[in-house]
């Protein structure tokens, strides 16, 4: 089989087409728009038997996606950044309906200041909603993740909506060779949608998403969704093995790269992880035992697999492409919480914040992060969290500030 050059957005659209969706509520937003435009063309050309409707907002779009899924059709939708946040009320709401569908989020940093390039604060804002989250690092993974997401969310042991995340620009607009499964292969993996008991129809009344009064009932329903999400871990492993049999591509909830004998490990999400792989290969040549651990599945959080990968490591450089204002890196906090009680936990976790708003992370910066982490492991002294920001950047910033002017006295 020969690969095809596809952008991340194109790969997402390919996956959606292979999934045989019934319904596509949409709303344009950069950098996601290419996905819905591509699907619109295929629908127009009769290549997909799907109804598409452009809604009046992402809030409306996610509402319609949820109610259509609750009516019993296979649904896809996509958004980015401000759109995901505008619809956030419904992200939480529809997850509680236990009606699965897939939403592709093309990560883009959040306002303010408003910007176009990626970081992960948008998708991490949906972290606690009940949506499962699969994070991709290549265009190939995007296509495969869409198919995996439908199987995972629709599994009767799970029944939850899924977000597939890809980074704006670095994946969305970047072409890479992608192997496209045949229709037959895709169909072998993903059967037509069986909504089970999830439907609205005459003679079988159901009141969905009803209010509850009292914390006891509320606790039950919320915790059941949590349990279903936890259950999705083993289901994910199971369907990945099945996918491997059909396509030959191996996926696991956590990707480990050269970790077996590694002493120092990069820990991060998304497309910048391939840059880290590059750095790992270079550093290995210098004799430094470095590796990379990257969760593909972020919700449910694959804690046990991560703990295994990180057992007895000397140090972990946690690279957060996000920032929890007033706290720091979100991955760093997540990782700390699962390692605290582990006897074989790594000696140090060093927190780096980088790649905010699409700011590049250079290979030299990966070298330096490795060096700082080695030093921390040897000295036993963990440095303060570090924003990846250079002297030169600040100098350029000063130049811009001098043009923008200021209102302080004397100016």
């Amino acid at each position: 089989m020969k690969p095809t050059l596809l952008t991340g957005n194109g790969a997402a659209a390919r996956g959606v087409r292979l999934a045989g969706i019934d319904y596509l509520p949409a709303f344009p937003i950069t950098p996601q728009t290419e996905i819905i435009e591509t699907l619109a063309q295929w629908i127009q050309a009769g290549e997909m038997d799907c109804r598409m409707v452009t809604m009046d907002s992402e809030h409306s779009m996610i509402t319609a996606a949820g109610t259509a899924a609750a009516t019993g059709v296979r649904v896809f939708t996509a958004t980015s950044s401000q759109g995901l946040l505008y619809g956030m009320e419904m992200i939480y709401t529809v997850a509680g309906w236990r009606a699965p569908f897939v939403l592709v989020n093309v990560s883009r940093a959040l306002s303010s200041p408003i910007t176009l390039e990626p970081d992960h604060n948008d998708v991490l804002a949906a972290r606690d909603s009940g949506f499962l989250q699969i994070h991709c690092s290549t265009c190939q993974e995007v296509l495969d993740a869409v198919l995996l997401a439908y199987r995972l969310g629709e599994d009767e042991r799970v029944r939850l909506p899924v977000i597939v995340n890809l980074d704006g620009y670095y994946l969305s607009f970047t072409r890479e060779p992608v192997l496209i499964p045949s229709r037959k292969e895709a169909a072998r993996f993903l059967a037509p949608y069986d909504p089970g008991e999830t439907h609205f129809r005459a003679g079988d009344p159901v009141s969905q998403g009803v209010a509850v009064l009292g914390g006891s009932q509320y606790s039950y329903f919320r915790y059941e969704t949590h349990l279903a999400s936890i259950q999705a871990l083993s289901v994910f492993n199971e369907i990945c093995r099945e996918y491997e049999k059909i396509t030959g591509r191996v996926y696991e909830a956590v990707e480990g790269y050269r970790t077996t004998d590694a002493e120092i490990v990069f820990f991060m999400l998304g497309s910048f992880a391939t840059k880290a792989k590059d750095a790992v290969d270079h550093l290995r040549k210098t004799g430094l035992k470095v590796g990379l651990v990257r969760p593909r599945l972020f919700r449910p959080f694959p804690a046990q697999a991560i703990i295994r990968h990180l057992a007895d490591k000397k140090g972990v450089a946690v690279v957060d492409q996000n920032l929890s204002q007033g706290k720091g890196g979100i991955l760093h906090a997540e990782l700390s919480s699962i390692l605290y009680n582990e006897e074989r936990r790594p000696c140090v976790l060093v927190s780096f914040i980088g790649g905010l708003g699409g700011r590049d992370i250079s290979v030299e910066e990966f070298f330096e992060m490795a060096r700082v982490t080695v030093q921390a492991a040897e000295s036993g002294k963990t440095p303060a969290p570090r924003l990846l920001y250079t002297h030169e950047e600040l100098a350029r910033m000063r130049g811009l500030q001098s043009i923008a002017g200021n209102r302080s006295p004397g100016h």
Partner: protein
Amino acid sequence: MKKTIFKTIKDLPRHHPLGAGTPACGGCGALEDIKLFCDILGEKTIFVNAAGCMTLLSVYPFTPFRGSWIYTAMASAPAGAQGVRDALDVLIQKKRLRPEDDLQVVVLTGDGSAYGMGLSATSGAMDRNLDFIYLCYDNEGYGNTGHQYSAATPHGAQTATSPEAGGYWGYKKDLFSIWAAHRPSYVATVSGSDPLDMARKIKKAKDLKGPRMFIALAPCPTGWHYDPKETVAIGKLAVKTGIWPLKEYIDGKVTHSKKPLSKEKRPGVEEYLEKQGRFAHLFKPRRNDELLAEIQARVDDYWDNIP
């Protein structure tokens, strides 16, 4: 010749599909409206609800509906209706649902959602010519949270957030005209106190396709401060005094299904206002002649300009 339906009270359905035992306040005008909608539309319905008083009709594990229901959020019930309608159409088209198992999709919101937060989603649904019925029960305030003023609150009404002597300073938004400007299939105002007019309009809408929009007056004993037994009487006075015009929009034209008597003969607005605690400040401790005259003049002006 076309058969006239709902000529007398006896022509109204004997059976009420809406179950009793709801948590709505005793004497709730909105429940009165919804009951009649269920009577006429039957059980093959799905109500798509936005946050409001009626959200608490379905509190786990109790629901009065014999059809289906889904609660969405305050801003997006019409979008929820879009998803359900489209999905039902897809299922029927792909032969995964028998056409006889189809449902009538009904959006159910209060005035808070209809006149405010949900207006954008409603506008979108009409733009897309969504095949649905929209029922706004208009109790003229954010009733579920203790009756603060909304964009549907009439001028001069005291609410929890307009407690001052003159009451609410704003003027009730003309939602009928805003909706009609979208040129949907049907727009009507109704009142539960006039069940024959309401039943005829629901029946008419039921037989049409596309967006069919209703604003139903929903007197609220709790928020308007009157004895619950007066709900129907107050609704009737709203129509008789001309404060609540009963009208419909269809094919680009607005017609009034019922007109109050002439200015000289119809009861003054005072008769309607004095029955409600929210307007008590117009009469006590001193009559507010100026404000009463203004309210009357606005009503008279409306009817003077009806062809």
